[in-house]
């Protein structure tokens, strides 16, 4: 195993330096300026997701059985008069065991904007956001119910508003974070892993492949190449993170803090960033990077194996389209699963090996379970090994002509 790893590192080192120590690497490094455009598209997608999730939110009224029908009637009357239709109203009959409004507001599986409970004249309203339109609507609703019953004028409703102290990040924001993770990993993989398809073409073109095949196991050649390209990818990411941090620092020193605060308070993107993933930021970032590595290795191994079968540059060019489509298909699957956490689709995306890293990163945003990520990383690593193994077998059989490895039925000839 030690020799295997050493061989792998020798190949990786060669590939890494061969890519990085060239002038064209600078062009490669600056290519992400295209990301600005792609980022805008991603932002729009995340926004749409957030909007769709918002549509799935709710307002809750916990009331006596006698008041339920009045609330329903008042809601029907008021809802149409509002300039922007409020979220769906859920009416619950008060019960000592279930009428804690804070607990109701924090129930999983739905996004609760505000909960009303207590007497109609002095209701208690628990809001997710302070001074929200949802809270004001519920106060208005209580007043409307009282007005419908009373013969004369009434004093205004004296509602007692409360905010959720912590843990109040909305599911919409978490889903946006999940989508963001899917998008970033997809984009980086699309930009960086696709290069592996032409990786072995160099060795086949300059005939070095026979030297490698004679000197070291082909598995270590394939893994070494993946590792070399991963090193390039990490360097690339580190460079742009540094650039972003430097840019942010410069901006922060040039702008008025009040302006920054104001921008942060109004920007939807900032609001999303201010949200907290279910597993917390440190773990989310760490596991996100781990999933990027696995996604890169998984898709890179597939591309490397497919590209190794190509005999000419033309064939490699022809392979680019199906490879891109494959990546986009994985992205689409994971984007859909990010908007439907807990669904069968999400479960499928998390289990299917080639979408698993993206889908699991999205899951980390909305689900606080941690142990499942270790399982997922192990599962994905197994698939990396499996893909590399099969790629090598195919390569030996097809390109090097050692078909005994897999066409076992043709081993024996008369």
């Amino acid at each position, binding site marked *: 195993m030690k*020799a295997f790893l*050493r*061989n792998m590192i*020798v*190949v990786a080192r*060669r590939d890494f330096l*061969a890519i990085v120590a*060239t002038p064209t690497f600078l062009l490669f490094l600056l290519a992400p300026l295209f990301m600005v455009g792609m980022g805008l598209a991603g932002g729009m997608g995340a926004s749409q997701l957030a909007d769709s999730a918002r549509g799935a939110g709710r307002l809750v009224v916990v009331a006596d059985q006698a008041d339920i029908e009045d609330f329903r009637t008042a809601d029907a009357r008021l809802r149409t008069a509002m300039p922007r239709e409020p979220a769906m109203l859920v009416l619950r009959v008060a019960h000592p065991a279930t009428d804690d409004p804070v607990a109701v507001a924090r129930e999983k599986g739905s996004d609760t904007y505000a909960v009303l409970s207590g007497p109609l004249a002095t209701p208690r309203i628990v809001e997710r956001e302070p001074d929200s339109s949802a809270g004001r609507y519920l106060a208005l609703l209580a007043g409307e119910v009282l007005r419908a019953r009373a013969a004369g004028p009434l004093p205004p409703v004296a509602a007692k508003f409360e905010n959720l102290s912590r843990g109040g990040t909305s599911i919409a924001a978490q889903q946006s974070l999940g989508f963001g993770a899917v998008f970033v990993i997809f984009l980086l993989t699309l930009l960086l892993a696709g290069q592996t398809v032409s990786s072995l073409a*160099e*060795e086949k073109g*300059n*005939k*070095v*492949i*026979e*030297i*490698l*095949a*004679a*000197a*070291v*196991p082909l598995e270590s050649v394939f893994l070494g190449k993946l590792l070399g390209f991963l090193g390039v990818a990490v360097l690339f990411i580190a460079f742009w993170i540094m650039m972003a941090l430097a840019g942010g620092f410069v901006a922060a020193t040039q702008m008025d803090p009040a302006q920054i605060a104001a921008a942060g308070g109004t920007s939807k993107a900032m609001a999303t960033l201010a949200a907290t993933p279910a597993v917390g930021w440190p773990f989310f970032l760490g596991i996100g990077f781990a999933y990027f590595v696995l996604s890169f290795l998984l898709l890179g191994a597939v591309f490397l194996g497919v590209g190794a079968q190509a005999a000419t540059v033309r064939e490699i060019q022809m392979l680019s389209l199906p490879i891109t489509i494959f990546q986009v298909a994985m992205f689409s699957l994971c984007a859909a699963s990010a908007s439907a956490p807990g669904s069968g689709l999400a479960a499928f995306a998390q289990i299917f090996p080639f979408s698993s890293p993206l889908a699991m990163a999205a899951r980390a945003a909305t689900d606080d379970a941690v142990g499942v990520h270790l399982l997922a990383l192990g599962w994905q690593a197994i698939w990396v090994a499996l893909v590399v193994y099969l790629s090598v077998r195919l390569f*030996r059989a097809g390109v*090097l*002509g*050692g*078909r*005994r*490895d897999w066409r076992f039925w*043709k*081993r024996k*000839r008369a």
Partner: protein
Amino acid sequence: MAPQDERKYCVKDPLLTDLAVEALGLTKYYEAFKAVDDVSLQVPTGSIYGVLGPNGAGKTTSLRMTLGIIDPDEGESRLLGGHKPQSVRHRIGYLPEERGLYPGMKAREAIAFMGALRGLDWSEGRRRAAAFMTELGLERVIDEKIRKMSKGMAQMVQLIGSIVHAPDLIVLDEPFSGLDPVNQERLETLVRRERDRGATILFSTHVMAHAERLCDRLAIIARSQRHFEGTVDEARALLPMQVRYTPRAEVGADAVAALLPADAELRGEAWHFAIDDRDVEPLLSRITASHFGVTGLSISRPALHDAFVHIVRQVDASFTADAAVEAGEEAAA
């Protein structure tokens, strides 16, 4: 060639006990074509062993199977004391027929890289690379990129790369092709020196001169099969002695012809013919006893080239005859 013919040409050496290469019954199909047919190679440790054959005979495929680069359909290969090829990769140096180097690498780095693949430390690889290149007169291109080198220089760099880690077994596939005579001479010297160091050298070629000068033993492969195995002298002994005789006296050709074997042929003033070893002394006695005298007389073994051509032509003739018989049988059927 029929199996009994191969047995006739196969000279067994009872001392072949310590083998660096033991490949038995290697067979390889490419679709329906049998590229290598039951080829066995037994290379004594510390020897220089040549695999000779015409183009397309199956030399390269045999070497690749021997080294485990491709898997044989039948047969197996054991190296350096009975090990599987994959388990002793680090003790082997290999120069493939199709030369390959990364064009963007500097020569020193390319050699160190090839050494590192076999487990040699990078810095030691660089040091040895410089020493080898200096010794071979390539010191001015030590830090030159491969793409800027001539084909011959690049080939020498690759050769150094295949031996930089001081392997126990060195396999060179057509190492002399593409080299000028000076570099060919340098390569021969290098091969001998590696043998003297204790390495075993197995190389393929279709240039007989190199094989004749270098090989302790050799195998001849033609039409996918091995048809000879033995020393250079044993190969040359497959053909009778060649005699060139020029009489002194001006006598009639018929009179001289009567003295010589029936196949003697007059070319200019000299008679050319072949004789068996046992007929040399009787011939000399007849010439001495005659009054024709001797202006010129040479009796020599045929070169390895002649033995090689003889074997290959026999194989080709046998193959053509077999094909004709098969075609006739098919037509009759």
